[in-house]
């Protein structure tokens, strides 16, 4: 009997092997590597190698789990951009002398970094992707960028402000998104510009630092930049992500006479913070939560408690760059609202990638990587160029929730509404 | 009133009762005696619908009940006082009694029945608000019987009412049973206490190893050698 059981086991294992050998249901094009000995194009007749059917791009995006609401926005941005580019025939690749459409293979990682890592491995080996697009949230990027580096695949990611990850010497990582140092610097700069009278400004800062590596970084930067800008850190506290009760932190901030709150909570934590602050009667003049109000449902979920909360979104649908109007129109049809804040940066990623491929003129990953590194172009998020560490030089707009809507309030040349201060 | 015909009962694959037939007539006290493990409790469980019999017929007041759910059988007027009483220890005495009148038929006459039960067991009236778990062994048994009476049954089945009681209490218990019977209730009694139960019963059956091995008028059976041998050898 046991022998037969082993036969069954064998059958199962063989079927496993077969299953893993068979390609994924979507037929994978045989992606020919770019031949290195590219012929110099002669003016008259050029013999191009057969072009691949698609330019394969891979991504792992948290569509479910705690970063699900961020990931869904990012996905929309990618999809819009790829659709737009493909509507035009795709990206011109000189090596093949033709336009090739982009194809994105994106898997949901359930906000689990381990799954994200295996997703990226999967698209790398199965789809032979030429580039990765990132998911959402710093903690997720922290895991996935290492895979890009390991596989030597250019990686473009937004929705993460973690600066330190760029200091690991990764060559393939690019992020056209405001980073922690920008955010820490700009929060005080914006505040000083928006509230010109010094006496009206808040003075005592409470910082609620999420106990994650990015939280640690940004919290420290807030603290360091506050003094020179003329502010005092009256209260600084760490909390573990997923905390549901912030009453102790809020009461201690209150006791320290803090009149301004800086933090980087994820969405559920952020909702809890503003609700509980209101319940406990803490009324800071200014609140900036870098990440939580990203969620499109923030206004609905927090009502008046979440009103006037500000954040650095990286982008806003009210910006006046080329292409935004079209994105908004499309988003309006699909979701009955202008584009969410992560749609633009995600869209820009694809723009940058397409430009990089076109400039490289080949599908060789290293060539694309070099082309992206040299980016200097207009995108839907304005002018983008990259520093040596892969961080982007991008606009860092300050966004504020007003009456259940997100408004751009700083810098002045882009603003869609006036800054509301102090919080009523 | 109650009629069992060729009832066979299995526990898993093991047969516990072999082709048992017996009957209880209206107004009677019938005793079922036999040593431990003879299958008496199993038989009662099957009559009450807690366990299914493999084959055979059980007829109560003209109804086939061998396939009925326990709650239906109570509704028809057949109540059982299970072995050890199985009172609801976490509830008060009164609540226990009220639960006895759970079936719709009895709910209407709840207060009337309650008085009747208090009359039979004045002790329960004294302790009505006490937690049932704090009662003594004898009181528990009274409560169990009282609870069964609350459903105003036509036939009352008692599974070892003398279990764990001091001799004086056993005597009183049997007196009470007789009294209840005099008030018109038919009684089917399962006992190990041979002497008292046979003196009380009009008729009796002797069950051994899942089979009926003797039957007769209560006092006749008392002198029946098989009873003696069944216990003492």
């Amino acid at each position, binding site marked *: 009997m046991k022998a037969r059981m082993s036969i069954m086991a064998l059958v199962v294992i063989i079927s496993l092997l077969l299953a893993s050998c068979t390609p994924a249901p979507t037929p994978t094009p045989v992606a020919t590597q770019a031949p290195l000995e590219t012929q110099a194009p002669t003016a008259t007749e050029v013999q191009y190698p057969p072009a691949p059917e698609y330019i394969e791009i891979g991504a792992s995006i948290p569509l479910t789990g705690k970063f699900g609401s961020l990931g869904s926005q990012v996905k929309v941005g990618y999809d819009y951009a790829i659709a737009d580019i493909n509507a035009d025939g795709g990206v011109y690749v000189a090596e093949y002398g033709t336009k090739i459409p982009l194809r994105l293979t994106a898997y949901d990682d359930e906000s689990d970094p381990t799954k994200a890592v295996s997703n990226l491995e999967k698209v790398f080996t199965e789809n032979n992707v030429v580039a990765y697009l990132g998911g959402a949230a710093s903690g997720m990027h922290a895991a996935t960028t290492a895979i890009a580096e390991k596989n030597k695949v250019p990686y473009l990611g937004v929705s993460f402000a973690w600066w330190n990850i760029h200091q690991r010497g990764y060559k393939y990582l690019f992020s056209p998104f405001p980073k922690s140092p920008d955010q820490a610097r700009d929060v005080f700069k914006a505040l000083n510009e928006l509230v010109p009278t010094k006496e009206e400004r808040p003075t005592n800062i409470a910082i609620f630092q999420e106990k994650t590596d990015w939280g640690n970084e940004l919290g420290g930067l807030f603290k360091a930049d506050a003094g020179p800008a003329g502010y005092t850190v009256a209260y600084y506290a760490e909390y573990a992500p997923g905390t549901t009760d912030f009453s102790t932190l809020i009461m201690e901030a209150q006791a320290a006479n803090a009149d301004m709150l800086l933090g980087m909570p994820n969405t559920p934590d952020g909702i809890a913070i503003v609700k509980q602050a209101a319940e406990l009667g803490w009324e800071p003049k200014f609140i900036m939560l870098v990440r939580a109000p990203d969620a499109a449902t923030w206004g609905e979920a927090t009502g008046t408690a979440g009103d006037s909360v500000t954040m650095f979104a990286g982008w806003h649908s009210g910006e006046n760059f080329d292409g935004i109007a079209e994105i908004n129109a499309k988003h309006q049809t699909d979701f009955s609202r202008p584009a969410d804040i992560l749609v633009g940066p995600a869209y820009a990623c694809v723009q940058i990638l397409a430009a990089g491929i076109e400039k490289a003129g080949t599908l060789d990953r290293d060539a694309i990587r070099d082309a992206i590194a040299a980016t200097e172009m207009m995108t839907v998020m304005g002018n983008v160029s990259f520093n040596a560490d892969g961080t982007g030089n991008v606009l860092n707009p300050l966004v504020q929730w007003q009456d259940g809507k997100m408004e751009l309030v700083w810098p002045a040349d882009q603003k869609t509404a006036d800054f509301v201060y102090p919080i009523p | 009133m109650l009629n069992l015909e060729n009832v066979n009962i299995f526990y898993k694959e093991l047969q516990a009762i072999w082709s048992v037939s017996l009957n209880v007539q209206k107004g009677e006290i019938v005793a079922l005696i036999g040593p431990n*493990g003879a299958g008496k409790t199993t038989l009662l469980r099957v009559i009450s619908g807690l366990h299914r019999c493999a084959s055979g017929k059980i007829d109560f007041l003209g109804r086939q009940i061998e396939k009925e759910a326990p709650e239906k059988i109570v509704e028809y007027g057949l109540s059982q006082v299970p072995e050890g009483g199985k009172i609801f220890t976490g509830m008060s005495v009164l609540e226990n009694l009220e639960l006895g009148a759970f079936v719709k038929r009895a709910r209407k006459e709840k207060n009337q029945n309650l008085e009747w039960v208090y009359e039979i067991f004045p002790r329960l009236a004294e302790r009505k608000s006490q937690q049932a778990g704090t009662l003594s062994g004898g009181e528990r048994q009274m409560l169990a019987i009282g609870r069964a009476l609350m459903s105003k049954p036509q036939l009352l089945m008692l599974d070892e009412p003398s*279990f764990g009681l001091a001799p004086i209490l056993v005597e009183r218990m049997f007196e009470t049973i007789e009294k209840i019977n005099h008030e018109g209730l038919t009684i089917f009694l399962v006992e190990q206490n041979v002497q008292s139960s046979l003196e009380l019963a009009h008729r009796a059956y002797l069950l051994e190893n899942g089979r009926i091995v003797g039957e007769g008028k209560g006092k006749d059976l008392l002198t029946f050698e098989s009873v*003696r041998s069944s*216990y003492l*050898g």
Partner: protein
Amino acid sequence: MQLLTVEKLCKSFGGLKAINNLDFHVNEGEIVGIIGPNGSGKTTSLNLLTGFLKPNSGRINFRGEEIGGLPRHIVCQKGIARTFQLCKPFMDFTAMQNVMVARAYGRKPSANLHIAEKESIDILEQVGLGSKAGILVKDLRVMERKRLELARALATKPYLLLLDELMAGLNLTEADEACKLINQIRESNITIIMVEHIVKAVTCVSDRIIVFNMGEKIAEGQPEEIVHNPKVIEVYLGKSHA
């Protein structure tokens, strides 16, 4: 020679005194029957002897050693084996595996499973289950399960074997077989205590019978004496019989 001596043993549950000042002893090579009606404390005393319960007070001396309150597996390793009133075989095991467990762990265990297996077959043969060694317990009949329970207890190589209502539920022929089996076991120098509800069940084999009622010893003696002891008859059949 006294193998087991119980002195002033007491055990109560809550307020209920299940065993009250119990004294008795068992000699080597004897078969002692313990009888009594339901709730008289037979099984409780058996549980006290085998470590399933801890006595409140009193002494249990076995082969010159105090064993009251020892963990039950230690009691077994010291040489007291028991069966359960409701058989507790390992249901997903074969008959052989059941016995092997006992042989591999009891007193003087055979650490080598091959040896244990061989010895187990012998024991199964001894109780008449030789042909059922490879059969799952699920598929055994009641009497066979009882035999298996016995085999398992024997496989622990006990000095003293405690049988809890082995005879209950057996018909006449089966009971006869059981008696034969017990006599046979006695021949291999194992002392036996039989706990039974029915007097008849122990008279055929016992050298001595102890009668319990309400947690106390009410009578002790030869089987014939016990059957005619008025106290015993009263306990079982009521006063008028006595």
